[in-house]
């Protein structure tokens, strides 16, 4: 009897009904709901929003783990400390964990509050976003800035448009864009990518510049001079945002989300093609960077695999995906090579193409409609 009454509190008419979306959220997080729809046609599939999101998070784990190790590795390298593998890993873990805590606390807090206000169910959209955010910022970003940026991105990038699935831009990238434009000195330059503890001094050889910045200044020759070979960039023990450095870890993630069918291989492939083509033009024009280097430097691959393929903000039509992906890759390299102000162009390229994705879809759809109309006429 008592049990029933308790449940009734949050049901329609119950005293605490206004809290029902929060309660429902925790309820479905923890338990499989017993209710089923009785009427109508349904596709029966093991995949629902929650499973999709979990797949992406699983795919991100290699990059995250590698990122934590790399944070410790870079600190050890910069200060000349001789740390073992586990010490580096746990050092990085302790540096990255606060970023995760802030990202989830702030993001989920706002998500829950706004679902509450709208009277809708909380859904799982923020799980992936919250996991992505710490991976695309420098490890040294102050936590209060991160909290502010997450709040901005979730409120103005997502909630005002109506929540998960309604947003125009990728919320994780919007967080990064907010940080990048608000506090440029904490997001770019050569002082932010490697954490130097207060009680340790960097060695003389330490510069802190990312390979992308080095290559942007002096081409591949400068990269060689700084001691970064192509394979170094491929393995990823280099300064950069937490999760973006290792090509191999990202490729493992790519296999997982492609195998589970969450992300579109068309977008990934065409983005790489776009980057290679523009990179090749750039090389002809004397950029001094071979085209394939663009694939392993900076956030290109991470953006291509995990951000550009976001099913909500990318193009929906199959032809549209080719166009969208190609332009993402091409624009990113255009910014890298021809904009003296920004070293990295991936964030701006994806956000810009997010904006244009609906237009691309519209054009693709109306083109195919008119093609069919013509066929009808001739037939």
């Amino acid at each position: 009897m008592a049990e029933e009454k308790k449940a009734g509190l949050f049901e329609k008419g119950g005293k605490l009904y206004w809290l029902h979306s929060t309660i429902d959220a925790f309820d479905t997080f923890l338990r499989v709901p017993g209710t089923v729809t009785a009427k109508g046609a349904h596709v029966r599939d093991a995949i629902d929003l929650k499973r999709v999101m979990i797949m992406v998070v699983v795919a991100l784990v290699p990059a995250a783990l590698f990122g934590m190790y790399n944070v410790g590795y870079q600190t050890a390298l910069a200060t000349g400390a001789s740390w073992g593998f586990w010490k580096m890993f746990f050092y990085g873990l302790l540096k990255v964990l606060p970023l995760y805590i802030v990202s989830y606390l702030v993001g989920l807090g706002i998500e829950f509050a706004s679902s509450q206000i709208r009277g809708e169910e909380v859904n799982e959209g923020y799980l992936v976003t919250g996991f992505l955010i710490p991976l695309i910022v420098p490890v040294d970003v102050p936590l209060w800035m991160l909290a502010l940026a997450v709040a901005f991105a979730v409120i103005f990038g997502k909630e005002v448009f109506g929540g998960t699935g309604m947003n125009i831009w990728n919320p994780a990238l919007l967080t990064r864009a907010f940080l990048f434009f608000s506090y440029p000195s904490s997001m770019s330059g050569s002082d932010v990518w490697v954490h130097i503890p207060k009680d340790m001094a960097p060695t003389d050889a330490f510069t802190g510049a990312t390979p992308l910045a080095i290559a942007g200044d002096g081409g591949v020759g400068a990269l060689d001079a700084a001691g970064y070979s192509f394979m170094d960039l491929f393995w990823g023990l280099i300064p950069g945002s937490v999760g973006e450095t290792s090509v191999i870890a990202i490729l493992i993630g790519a296999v997982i989300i492609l195998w589970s069918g969450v992300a579109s291989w068309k977008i990934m492939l065409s983005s790489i093609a776009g980057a290679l083509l523009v990179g090749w033009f750039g090389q002809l024009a004397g950029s001094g960077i071979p085209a394939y280097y663009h694939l392993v430097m900076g956030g290109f691959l991470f953006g291509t695999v995990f951000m550009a393929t976001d099913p909500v903000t990318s193009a929906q039509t199959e032809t549209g995906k080719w166009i969208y992906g190609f332009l993402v890759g091409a624009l990113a390299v255009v910014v890298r090579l021809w904009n003296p102000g920004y070293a990295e162009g991936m964030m701006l390229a994806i956000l810009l193409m997010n904006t244009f994705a609906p237009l691309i879809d519209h054009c693709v759809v109306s083109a195919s409609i008119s093609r069919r109309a013509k066929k009808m006429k001739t037939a």
Partner: protein
Amino acid sequence: MNTNSNIYTVIYTTVIVVIVAAVLAFVSQSLKGNQQANEKADTISQMLTAAQFGTKADFQKMGNKAVLARYAEEIAEAFTVSPDGSRTGDIALDEVFSPSLLKRQNYNIKGGQNATGAPELPVFIFKNGKKVVPVYGAGLWGPVWGYIAFNEDNSIAGAYFDHESETAGLGAKIKDDPAFQAEFIGEKPSLGESKVFEIVKGGSPKDTENKEVIDNKIDAITGATMTSKGLEAAINTWLGAYSAYLLSATPKVEEEVPAEVNEEAVEGEETTKTVEE
């Protein structure tokens, strides 16, 4: 009356336009004196600020008259030079070079179809020996210009920059941020070389005591790359044109006295004199 007839329409528009034109012409004429006085005082206070006689805010508070009086007190000589270093003409001591005149000379330095003749570059010499020269060029949204003051050994004594429409809070810092202008003090442009001055991320390297090395580099403004680049180009173009004059006007000072050069650059002209002796 039929206000839609052709004749009425024509007469009406004519009368309105004539009245408006007359009002504007009258107002423009009667305010012209004030406006020019304002512009001149503004230019002069920029030069005085560059030569470190005070801050721009001080001069703004002083009012036009006091600024002009101060200028008359400090100025020793003003003349124009050509890019080969020879003197081409005099500038009256109560005359200044407005930004529009600078724009014309900027075309002349660069040559091409907008040039109106050989460049005549103004130099203003103050009684304490500081030389003030202008620079002018294109920023991100519009022109940027300013004044750079030189000590007698051609190290920079100070600088002031202005702009028409750079982004407030970013590019506008060339004007609004005294810290940016202070960075110029003590630097030594490589006069006569192809790259006279550089505004780059990071600025000068630091020496072992964590002091900035005296060279021709200062730190760019974070978030305002295009304005920084534009200003750098303006400085290079103009100081390039002034190189011959500045080098020839300098009494030969041996550069290989790093410690003293360091001090003199910071302390200004008094120590400069001792180095010369």
